[in-house]
Protein backbone atom coordinates (compact mmCIF):
# COMPACT_ATOMS: atom_id res chain seq x y z
CA UNK A 1 0.00 0.00 0.00
CA UNK A 2 1.22 3.45 -0.82
CA UNK A 3 1.79 5.56 2.27
CA UNK A 4 2.93 8.67 0.42
CA UNK A 5 0.53 11.37 1.55
CA UNK A 6 2.05 14.19 -0.45
CA UNK A 7 -0.44 15.67 -2.90
CA UNK A 8 0.18 14.02 -6.22
CA UNK A 9 -0.32 16.92 -8.53
CA UNK A 10 -0.56 20.49 -7.31
CA UNK A 11 -2.21 23.06 -9.55
CA UNK A 12 0.56 24.61 -11.67
CA UNK A 13 1.49 28.02 -10.35
CA UNK A 14 1.54 31.17 -12.46
CA UNK A 15 4.11 33.89 -11.89
CA UNK A 16 3.41 35.39 -8.47
CA UNK A 17 2.65 32.02 -6.90
CA UNK A 18 -1.04 32.01 -7.76
CA UNK A 19 -2.46 28.84 -9.21
CA UNK A 20 -3.47 29.24 -12.87
CA UNK A 21 -7.11 30.02 -13.64
CA UNK A 22 -7.84 27.30 -16.14
CA UNK A 23 -7.12 24.27 -13.93
CA UNK A 24 -9.85 25.55 -11.60
CA UNK A 25 -12.27 25.98 -14.48
CA UNK A 26 -11.43 22.46 -15.57
CA UNK A 27 -11.72 21.05 -12.06
CA UNK A 28 -14.75 18.90 -11.39
CA UNK A 29 -16.55 21.80 -9.69
CA UNK A 30 -15.42 24.40 -12.26
CA UNK A 31 -16.85 22.28 -15.09
CA UNK A 32 -20.06 21.86 -13.13
CA UNK A 33 -20.32 25.64 -12.83
CA UNK A 34 -19.91 25.97 -16.60
CA UNK A 35 -22.63 23.36 -17.08
CA UNK A 36 -24.93 25.01 -14.52
CA UNK A 37 -24.65 28.56 -15.89
CA UNK A 38 -25.01 27.50 -19.53
CA UNK A 39 -27.93 25.25 -18.57
CA UNK A 40 -29.79 28.02 -16.77
CA UNK A 41 -29.34 30.34 -19.79
CA UNK A 42 -30.96 27.67 -21.95
CA UNK A 43 -33.79 27.25 -19.42
CA UNK A 44 -34.48 30.98 -19.75
CA UNK A 45 -34.59 30.62 -23.54
CA UNK A 46 -36.83 27.56 -23.36
CA UNK A 47 -39.38 29.31 -21.14
CA UNK A 48 -39.47 32.32 -23.52
CA UNK A 49 -39.76 30.00 -26.54
CA UNK A 50 -42.60 28.04 -24.90
CA UNK A 51 -44.48 31.23 -24.04
CA UNK A 52 -43.96 32.59 -27.59
CA UNK A 53 -45.37 29.39 -29.12
CA UNK A 54 -48.67 30.00 -27.37
CA UNK A 55 -49.35 32.85 -29.86
CA UNK A 56 -50.48 30.06 -32.17
CA UNK A 57 -53.76 29.94 -30.25
CA UNK A 58 -54.38 33.60 -31.12
CA UNK A 59 -54.43 32.82 -34.82
CA UNK A 60 -52.24 33.16 -37.88
CA UNK A 61 -51.83 36.92 -37.73
CA UNK A 62 -50.79 37.11 -34.08
CA UNK A 63 -48.28 34.25 -34.44
CA UNK A 64 -46.72 35.73 -37.59
CA UNK A 65 -46.64 39.21 -36.06
CA UNK A 66 -44.80 37.79 -33.06
CA UNK A 67 -42.27 36.01 -35.34
CA UNK A 68 -41.87 39.22 -37.37
CA UNK A 69 -41.47 41.25 -34.17
CA UNK A 70 -38.53 39.10 -33.10
CA UNK A 71 -36.82 40.05 -36.37
CA UNK A 72 -37.60 43.76 -36.32
CA UNK A 73 -37.09 44.26 -32.56
CA UNK A 74 -35.48 47.64 -31.83
CA UNK A 75 -35.52 48.84 -35.47
CA UNK A 76 -34.47 51.32 -36.68
CA UNK A 77 -32.27 51.93 -33.63
CA UNK A 78 -30.51 48.58 -34.07
CA UNK A 79 -30.10 46.55 -37.27
CA UNK A 80 -32.59 43.98 -38.56
CA UNK A 81 -32.56 40.67 -36.63
CA UNK A 82 -30.22 42.06 -33.91
CA UNK A 83 -32.15 40.45 -31.07
CA UNK A 84 -32.38 37.18 -32.97
CA UNK A 85 -28.65 37.09 -33.61
CA UNK A 86 -27.78 37.89 -29.98
CA UNK A 87 -30.06 35.02 -28.96
CA UNK A 88 -28.63 32.69 -31.60
CA UNK A 89 -24.99 33.40 -30.73
CA UNK A 90 -25.74 33.20 -27.00
CA UNK A 91 -27.52 29.89 -27.48
CA UNK A 92 -24.74 28.45 -29.61
CA UNK A 93 -22.21 29.45 -26.93
CA UNK A 94 -24.40 27.97 -24.15
CA UNK A 95 -25.01 24.73 -26.04
CA UNK A 96 -21.28 24.43 -26.82
CA UNK A 97 -20.24 25.06 -23.22
CA UNK A 98 -22.91 22.70 -21.89
CA UNK A 99 -21.92 19.84 -24.20
CA UNK A 100 -18.18 20.42 -23.74
CA UNK A 101 -18.41 20.32 -19.94
CA UNK A 102 -20.72 17.31 -19.96
CA UNK A 103 -18.45 15.33 -22.29
CA UNK A 104 -15.37 16.05 -20.14
CA UNK A 105 -17.21 15.18 -16.91
CA UNK A 106 -18.79 12.04 -18.38
CA UNK A 107 -15.42 10.77 -19.57
CA UNK A 108 -13.95 11.39 -16.12
CA UNK A 109 -16.91 9.65 -14.47
CA UNK A 110 -16.51 6.58 -16.68
CA UNK A 111 -12.77 6.49 -15.97
CA UNK A 112 -13.44 6.80 -12.23
CA UNK A 113 -15.13 3.37 -12.18
CA UNK A 114 -13.06 1.13 -14.46
CA UNK A 115 -14.58 -2.10 -13.05
CA UNK A 116 -18.36 -2.21 -12.78
CA UNK A 117 -20.40 -3.88 -10.07
CA UNK A 118 -21.63 -7.40 -10.78
CA UNK A 119 -24.91 -6.80 -8.98
CA UNK A 120 -27.11 -3.80 -9.60
CA UNK A 121 -29.30 -2.05 -7.09
CA UNK A 122 -32.22 0.31 -7.61
CA UNK A 123 -31.25 3.96 -7.13
CA UNK A 124 -32.27 5.42 -3.78
CA UNK A 125 -30.86 8.95 -3.85
CA UNK A 126 -32.76 12.24 -4.11
CA UNK A 127 -32.67 12.30 -7.93
CA UNK A 128 -33.30 8.62 -8.66
CA UNK A 129 -33.93 8.99 -12.38
CA UNK A 130 -30.96 11.32 -12.98
CA UNK A 131 -28.21 8.77 -13.60
CA UNK A 132 -30.49 6.87 -15.98
CA UNK A 133 -31.95 9.82 -17.89
CA UNK A 134 -29.55 12.77 -18.02
CA UNK A 135 -27.03 11.40 -20.52
CA UNK A 136 -29.40 9.38 -22.74
CA UNK A 137 -31.97 12.15 -22.48
CA UNK A 138 -29.34 14.61 -23.67
CA UNK A 139 -28.72 12.47 -26.77
CA UNK A 140 -32.46 12.41 -27.51
CA UNK A 141 -32.63 16.18 -27.07
CA UNK A 142 -29.67 16.76 -29.44
CA UNK A 143 -31.32 14.59 -32.11
CA UNK A 144 -34.60 16.39 -31.58
CA UNK A 145 -33.06 19.88 -31.79
CA UNK A 146 -31.37 18.89 -35.06
CA UNK A 147 -34.69 17.79 -36.55
CA UNK A 148 -36.48 20.79 -35.06
CA UNK A 149 -34.06 23.26 -36.70
CA UNK A 150 -34.41 21.51 -40.08
CA UNK A 151 -38.20 21.50 -39.70
CA UNK A 152 -39.16 24.86 -38.25
CA UNK A 153 -36.08 27.11 -38.53
CA UNK A 154 -34.44 26.22 -41.88
CA UNK A 155 -37.70 24.57 -43.16
CA UNK A 156 -35.58 22.00 -45.02
CA UNK A 157 -38.07 19.25 -44.23
CA UNK A 158 -41.10 21.50 -43.80
CA UNK A 159 -43.60 21.94 -46.68
CA UNK A 160 -44.02 25.68 -45.86
CA UNK A 161 -40.89 27.45 -47.11
CA UNK A 162 -42.04 31.09 -46.71
CA UNK A 163 -40.13 32.36 -43.66
CA UNK A 164 -42.77 34.93 -42.55
CA UNK A 165 -45.48 32.24 -42.31
CA UNK A 166 -44.49 30.72 -38.94
CA UNK A 167 -48.10 29.77 -38.30
CA UNK A 168 -48.39 27.86 -41.55
CA UNK A 169 -45.12 26.02 -40.84
CA UNK A 170 -46.33 24.93 -37.40
CA UNK A 171 -49.66 23.72 -38.78
CA UNK A 172 -47.87 21.83 -41.57
CA UNK A 173 -45.28 20.34 -39.16
CA UNK A 174 -47.87 18.73 -36.92
CA UNK A 175 -50.51 17.88 -39.52
CA UNK A 176 -52.31 14.62 -38.62
CA UNK A 177 -50.65 12.71 -41.48
CA UNK A 178 -47.23 13.68 -40.08
CA UNK A 179 -48.08 11.95 -36.77
CA UNK A 180 -44.59 10.37 -36.33
CA UNK A 181 -43.19 13.93 -36.09
CA UNK A 182 -45.67 14.74 -33.34
CA UNK A 183 -44.86 11.51 -31.46
CA UNK A 184 -41.11 12.24 -31.70
CA UNK A 185 -41.76 15.80 -30.50
CA UNK A 186 -43.70 14.53 -27.48
CA UNK A 187 -41.05 11.90 -26.64
CA UNK A 188 -38.34 14.55 -26.83
CA UNK A 189 -40.44 16.67 -24.46
CA UNK A 190 -40.50 13.82 -21.94
CA UNK A 191 -36.70 13.63 -22.16
CA UNK A 192 -36.52 17.42 -21.75
CA UNK A 193 -38.85 17.27 -18.75
CA UNK A 194 -36.69 14.71 -16.94
CA UNK A 195 -33.57 16.69 -17.90
CA UNK A 196 -34.99 19.91 -16.44
CA UNK A 197 -36.42 18.23 -13.33
CA UNK A 198 -32.87 17.25 -12.31
CA UNK A 199 -30.91 19.90 -14.18
CA UNK A 200 -32.55 22.99 -12.69
CA UNK A 201 -32.12 22.11 -9.02
CA UNK A 202 -28.73 20.58 -9.73
CA UNK A 203 -27.60 23.88 -11.28
CA UNK A 204 -28.80 25.79 -8.23
CA UNK A 205 -27.01 23.28 -5.96
CA UNK A 206 -23.79 23.84 -7.92
CA UNK A 207 -23.97 27.63 -8.06
CA UNK A 208 -25.62 28.60 -4.77
CA UNK A 209 -25.32 25.50 -2.57
CA UNK A 210 -28.62 25.87 -0.69
CA UNK A 211 -29.18 24.35 2.75
CA UNK A 212 -31.38 21.28 3.22
CA UNK A 213 -34.67 23.20 3.43
CA UNK A 214 -33.98 25.36 0.38
CA UNK A 215 -32.72 22.38 -1.57
CA UNK A 216 -36.14 20.74 -1.11
CA UNK A 217 -37.83 23.96 -2.28
CA UNK A 218 -35.62 24.15 -5.37
CA UNK A 219 -36.36 20.52 -6.16
CA UNK A 220 -40.08 21.32 -6.02
CA UNK A 221 -39.56 24.44 -8.15
CA UNK A 222 -37.59 22.41 -10.72
CA UNK A 223 -40.42 19.91 -10.96
CA UNK A 224 -42.95 22.75 -11.35
CA UNK A 225 -40.97 24.45 -14.13
CA UNK A 226 -40.50 21.11 -15.92
CA UNK A 227 -44.22 20.34 -15.85
CA UNK A 228 -45.12 23.84 -17.07
CA UNK A 229 -42.53 23.74 -19.87
CA UNK A 230 -43.54 20.27 -21.06
CA UNK A 231 -47.25 21.08 -20.93
CA UNK A 232 -46.76 24.48 -22.62
CA UNK A 233 -44.80 22.93 -25.48
CA UNK A 234 -47.02 19.86 -25.81
CA UNK A 235 -50.33 21.70 -26.27
CA UNK A 236 -49.25 23.21 -29.60
CA UNK A 237 -48.58 20.00 -31.60
CA UNK A 238 -51.50 18.27 -29.88
CA UNK A 239 -53.86 21.11 -30.78
CA UNK A 240 -52.70 21.01 -34.41
CA UNK A 241 -52.88 17.21 -34.64
CA UNK A 242 -56.40 17.14 -33.27
CA UNK A 243 -57.57 19.97 -35.52
CA UNK A 244 -58.07 22.65 -32.86
CA UNK A 245 -55.59 24.86 -34.74
CA UNK A 246 -55.59 24.77 -38.53
Amino acid at each position, binding site marked *: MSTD*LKPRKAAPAKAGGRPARSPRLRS*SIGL*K*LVMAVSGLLMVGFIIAHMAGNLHVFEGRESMNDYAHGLRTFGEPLIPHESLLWVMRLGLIAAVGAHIWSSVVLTRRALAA*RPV*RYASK*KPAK*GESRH*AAATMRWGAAVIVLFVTWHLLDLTFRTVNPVKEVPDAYGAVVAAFAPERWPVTVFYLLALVALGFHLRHGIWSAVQT*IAGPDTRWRARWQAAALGVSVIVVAGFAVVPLAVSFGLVN
Partner: protein
Amino acid sequence: MKLKLRIWRQSGAEAKGRMVEYIVDGISEDASFLEMLDVLNEQLIAEGADPVAFDHDCREGICGACSLVIDGQAHGPQAATTTCQLHMRKYRDGDVIDVEPWRAGAFPVIKDLVVDRTAFDRIIAAGGYISAPTGTAPDAHATPVAKQDADAAFAAAACIGCGACVAACPNGSGMLFMAAKVAHLARMPQGQPERHTRVLGMVAEHDASGFGGCTNTGECSAACPKEIGLDVIGQLNRDFRKAAAKAA
Protein backbone atom coordinates in the same frame (compact mmCIF):
# COMPACT_ATOMS: atom_id res chain seq x y z
CA MET B 1 -29.62 -20.29 8.24
CA LYS B 2 -27.98 -21.50 5.07
CA LEU B 3 -26.77 -18.95 2.53
CA LYS B 4 -25.19 -18.88 -0.88
CA LEU B 5 -22.51 -16.20 -1.12
CA ARG B 6 -20.98 -14.86 -4.32
CA ILE B 7 -17.78 -13.09 -3.33
CA TRP B 8 -15.22 -11.17 -5.39
CA ARG B 9 -11.92 -13.03 -5.17
CA GLN B 10 -8.74 -11.38 -6.43
CA SER B 11 -5.38 -12.69 -5.24
CA GLY B 12 -3.53 -9.39 -5.59
CA ALA B 13 -3.59 -5.86 -7.00
CA GLU B 14 -2.47 -6.95 -10.46
CA ALA B 15 -4.38 -10.24 -10.53
CA LYS B 16 -7.59 -10.77 -12.44
CA GLY B 17 -10.55 -11.23 -10.11
CA ARG B 18 -13.89 -13.02 -10.38
CA MET B 19 -17.03 -13.77 -8.39
CA VAL B 20 -16.75 -17.11 -6.54
CA GLU B 21 -19.67 -19.03 -4.97
CA TYR B 22 -19.60 -20.32 -1.40
CA ILE B 23 -22.19 -22.02 0.80
CA VAL B 24 -22.28 -21.23 4.53
CA ASP B 25 -24.55 -23.09 6.92
CA GLY B 26 -25.64 -22.71 10.53
CA ILE B 27 -25.49 -18.90 10.54
CA SER B 28 -27.24 -17.33 13.54
CA GLU B 29 -29.59 -14.46 12.82
CA ASP B 30 -27.84 -12.63 15.68
CA ALA B 31 -24.51 -12.76 13.86
CA SER B 32 -23.25 -9.60 12.20
CA PHE B 33 -22.46 -9.69 8.49
CA LEU B 34 -18.73 -9.72 9.27
CA GLU B 35 -19.19 -12.58 11.78
CA MET B 36 -20.91 -14.52 9.02
CA LEU B 37 -17.80 -13.94 6.87
CA ASP B 38 -15.65 -15.05 9.84
CA VAL B 39 -17.58 -18.36 9.85
CA LEU B 40 -16.93 -18.70 6.12
CA ASN B 41 -13.23 -17.98 6.62
CA GLU B 42 -12.90 -20.59 9.42
CA GLN B 43 -14.51 -23.05 7.05
CA LEU B 44 -12.07 -22.09 4.26
CA ILE B 45 -9.04 -22.32 6.58
CA ALA B 46 -10.17 -25.78 7.75
CA GLU B 47 -10.36 -26.83 4.10
CA GLY B 48 -6.87 -25.47 3.53
CA ALA B 49 -8.18 -22.74 1.19
CA ASP B 50 -7.25 -19.04 1.17
CA PRO B 51 -9.64 -17.08 3.45
CA VAL B 52 -11.47 -14.05 2.07
CA ALA B 53 -9.62 -10.81 2.85
CA PHE B 54 -11.84 -7.95 4.05
CA ASP B 55 -11.24 -4.75 6.03
CA HIS B 56 -12.62 -4.44 9.56
CA ASP B 57 -11.54 -2.94 12.83
CA CYS B 58 -13.82 -1.62 15.60
CA ARG B 59 -16.91 -3.60 14.55
CA GLU B 60 -19.06 -1.02 16.32
CA GLY B 61 -19.76 1.32 13.41
CA ILE B 62 -17.35 4.14 14.17
CA CYS B 63 -13.96 3.40 12.60
CA GLY B 64 -14.81 3.38 8.89
CA ALA B 65 -12.72 0.31 8.08
CA CYS B 66 -15.43 -2.07 6.90
CA SER B 67 -16.23 -1.56 3.26
CA LEU B 68 -18.37 -4.09 1.46
CA VAL B 69 -20.79 -3.63 -1.39
CA ILE B 70 -23.56 -6.10 -0.58
CA ASP B 71 -26.01 -6.87 -3.39
CA GLY B 72 -24.91 -3.71 -5.15
CA GLN B 73 -25.36 -1.47 -2.11
CA ALA B 74 -22.48 0.07 -0.17
CA HIS B 75 -22.70 -1.27 3.43
CA GLY B 76 -25.74 -3.34 2.46
CA PRO B 77 -29.48 -2.78 2.43
CA GLN B 78 -29.98 -1.08 5.81
CA ALA B 79 -29.90 2.73 5.93
CA ALA B 80 -27.47 4.56 8.23
CA THR B 81 -25.60 1.32 8.99
CA THR B 82 -22.03 0.19 8.45
CA THR B 83 -21.42 -3.37 7.25
CA CYS B 84 -20.27 -4.42 10.73
CA GLN B 85 -23.58 -3.27 12.23
CA LEU B 86 -25.66 -5.08 9.63
CA HIS B 87 -27.07 -8.27 11.15
CA MET B 88 -28.09 -11.52 9.55
CA ARG B 89 -31.65 -11.13 10.77
CA LYS B 90 -32.05 -8.92 7.67
CA TYR B 91 -31.67 -12.11 5.60
CA ARG B 92 -33.64 -15.33 5.20
CA ASP B 93 -32.56 -18.93 4.88
CA GLY B 94 -31.61 -19.71 1.29
CA ASP B 95 -30.76 -16.12 0.30
CA VAL B 96 -28.10 -15.49 -2.33
CA ILE B 97 -25.84 -12.57 -1.38
CA ASP B 98 -23.33 -10.82 -3.66
CA VAL B 99 -20.30 -9.27 -1.94
CA GLU B 100 -17.97 -6.95 -3.83
CA PRO B 101 -15.29 -4.41 -2.94
CA TRP B 102 -15.72 -0.62 -3.30
CA ARG B 103 -15.40 -0.03 -7.05
CA ALA B 104 -13.41 3.08 -7.96
CA GLY B 105 -10.28 3.75 -9.99
CA ALA B 106 -9.03 5.83 -7.06
CA PHE B 107 -9.53 2.83 -4.70
CA PRO B 108 -7.51 0.01 -6.30
CA VAL B 109 -8.16 -3.50 -4.96
CA ILE B 110 -5.31 -4.83 -2.78
CA LYS B 111 -6.79 -8.26 -2.28
CA ASP B 112 -10.31 -9.71 -2.50
CA LEU B 113 -12.56 -7.16 -0.77
CA VAL B 114 -9.79 -4.90 0.55
CA VAL B 115 -9.19 -1.64 -1.32
CA ASP B 116 -6.49 1.02 -0.92
CA ARG B 117 -8.16 4.20 0.37
CA THR B 118 -4.95 6.25 0.62
CA ALA B 119 -6.49 8.69 -1.87
CA PHE B 120 -8.74 9.93 0.98
CA ASP B 121 -5.67 10.55 3.14
CA ARG B 122 -4.11 12.54 0.31
CA ILE B 123 -7.24 14.69 0.03
CA ILE B 124 -7.09 15.43 3.76
CA ALA B 125 -3.34 16.13 3.52
CA ALA B 126 -4.10 18.66 0.74
CA GLY B 127 -6.05 20.93 3.12
CA GLY B 128 -8.49 19.05 5.33
CA TYR B 129 -6.95 20.25 8.58
CA ILE B 130 -6.31 23.41 10.59
CA SER B 131 -2.89 24.78 11.48
CA ALA B 132 -2.86 25.56 15.20
CA PRO B 133 -0.14 26.48 17.67
CA THR B 134 0.46 23.60 20.04
CA GLY B 135 0.57 23.94 23.80
CA THR B 136 -1.82 23.24 26.60
CA ALA B 137 -5.46 22.69 25.68
CA PRO B 138 -7.36 26.00 25.43
CA ASP B 139 -10.23 26.76 27.81
CA ALA B 140 -13.49 25.26 26.60
CA HIS B 141 -15.17 28.63 26.08
CA ALA B 142 -12.14 30.58 24.87
CA THR B 143 -13.56 30.60 21.33
CA PRO B 144 -17.36 30.85 21.29
CA VAL B 145 -19.21 28.96 18.55
CA ALA B 146 -22.90 29.55 17.82
CA LYS B 147 -25.11 26.54 18.62
CA GLN B 148 -26.35 26.07 15.06
CA ASP B 149 -22.79 26.24 13.69
CA ALA B 150 -21.59 23.77 16.29
CA ASP B 151 -24.44 21.39 15.41
CA ALA B 152 -23.84 21.66 11.65
CA ALA B 153 -20.08 21.22 12.08
CA PHE B 154 -20.67 18.22 14.30
CA ALA B 155 -23.06 16.61 11.80
CA ALA B 156 -20.46 17.00 9.03
CA ALA B 157 -17.65 15.79 11.30
CA ALA B 158 -19.55 12.51 11.82
CA CYS B 159 -17.92 11.31 8.57
CA ILE B 160 -15.86 8.18 9.32
CA GLY B 161 -14.07 8.24 5.96
CA CYS B 162 -15.27 4.77 4.95
CA GLY B 163 -15.71 5.66 1.27
CA ALA B 164 -19.27 4.34 0.87
CA CYS B 165 -20.12 7.63 -0.89
CA VAL B 166 -17.54 6.85 -3.60
CA ALA B 167 -18.71 3.25 -3.86
CA ALA B 168 -22.36 4.29 -4.27
CA CYS B 169 -21.79 7.24 -6.61
CA PRO B 170 -22.55 6.49 -10.28
CA ASN B 171 -19.55 8.71 -11.11
CA GLY B 172 -17.13 7.34 -8.51
CA SER B 173 -16.94 10.82 -6.98
CA GLY B 174 -15.36 11.56 -3.61
CA MET B 175 -17.30 14.79 -3.28
CA LEU B 176 -19.36 13.90 -0.17
CA PHE B 177 -16.27 12.85 1.79
CA MET B 178 -14.37 15.99 0.78
CA ALA B 179 -17.39 18.24 1.34
CA ALA B 180 -18.00 16.84 4.83
CA LYS B 181 -14.52 17.97 5.88
CA VAL B 182 -14.85 21.35 4.12
CA ALA B 183 -18.28 21.98 5.69
CA HIS B 184 -17.10 20.88 9.12
CA LEU B 185 -14.16 23.31 9.19
CA ALA B 186 -16.03 26.12 7.37
CA ARG B 187 -18.49 26.31 10.29
CA MET B 188 -15.75 26.68 12.91
CA PRO B 189 -13.77 29.86 13.71
CA GLN B 190 -10.61 27.74 13.70
CA GLY B 191 -11.26 26.78 10.08
CA GLN B 192 -11.46 30.34 8.69
CA PRO B 193 -7.79 31.31 8.07
CA GLU B 194 -7.21 28.42 5.63
CA ARG B 195 -10.76 28.24 4.30
CA HIS B 196 -9.98 29.18 0.69
CA THR B 197 -6.65 27.42 0.23
CA ARG B 198 -8.23 24.34 1.82
CA VAL B 199 -11.03 24.01 -0.70
CA LEU B 200 -8.81 24.70 -3.73
CA GLY B 201 -6.16 22.25 -2.56
CA MET B 202 -8.60 19.49 -1.70
CA VAL B 203 -10.53 19.77 -4.97
CA ALA B 204 -7.29 19.70 -7.00
CA GLU B 205 -6.15 16.58 -5.14
CA HIS B 206 -9.59 14.94 -5.44
CA ASP B 207 -9.51 15.35 -9.22
CA ALA B 208 -5.85 14.31 -9.52
CA SER B 209 -6.62 11.11 -7.60
CA GLY B 210 -9.06 10.12 -10.34
CA PHE B 211 -12.41 10.56 -8.60
CA GLY B 212 -15.30 11.60 -10.84
CA GLY B 213 -17.42 14.75 -10.57
CA CYS B 214 -20.70 15.19 -8.70
CA THR B 215 -24.00 14.97 -10.60
CA ASN B 216 -26.21 15.50 -7.53
CA THR B 217 -27.98 12.15 -7.79
CA GLY B 218 -27.79 11.82 -4.00
CA GLU B 219 -26.70 8.16 -4.01
CA CYS B 220 -23.75 9.07 -1.74
CA SER B 221 -25.99 10.51 0.94
CA ALA B 222 -28.41 7.58 0.76
CA ALA B 223 -25.51 5.14 1.28
CA CYS B 224 -23.71 7.16 3.98
CA PRO B 225 -23.74 5.25 7.28
CA LYS B 226 -23.58 8.60 9.08
CA GLU B 227 -26.38 10.17 6.97
CA ILE B 228 -24.31 13.16 5.84
CA GLY B 229 -26.54 15.29 3.64
CA LEU B 230 -26.09 16.92 0.24
CA ASP B 231 -26.03 20.31 1.98
CA VAL B 232 -22.30 19.76 2.65
CA ILE B 233 -21.72 19.50 -1.12
CA GLY B 234 -23.63 22.77 -1.49
CA GLN B 235 -21.27 24.36 1.02
CA LEU B 236 -18.26 22.94 -0.85
CA ASN B 237 -19.55 24.33 -4.17
CA ARG B 238 -20.14 27.74 -2.60
CA ASP B 239 -16.72 27.88 -0.94
CA PHE B 240 -15.02 26.69 -4.14
CA ARG B 241 -16.72 29.39 -6.21
CA LYS B 242 -15.70 32.13 -3.78
CA ALA B 243 -12.15 30.81 -3.36
CA ALA B 244 -11.65 30.45 -7.12
CA ALA B 245 -13.00 33.96 -7.78
CA LYS B 246 -10.81 35.48 -5.09
CA ALA B 247 -7.67 33.68 -6.25
CA ALA B 248 -8.28 34.66 -9.90
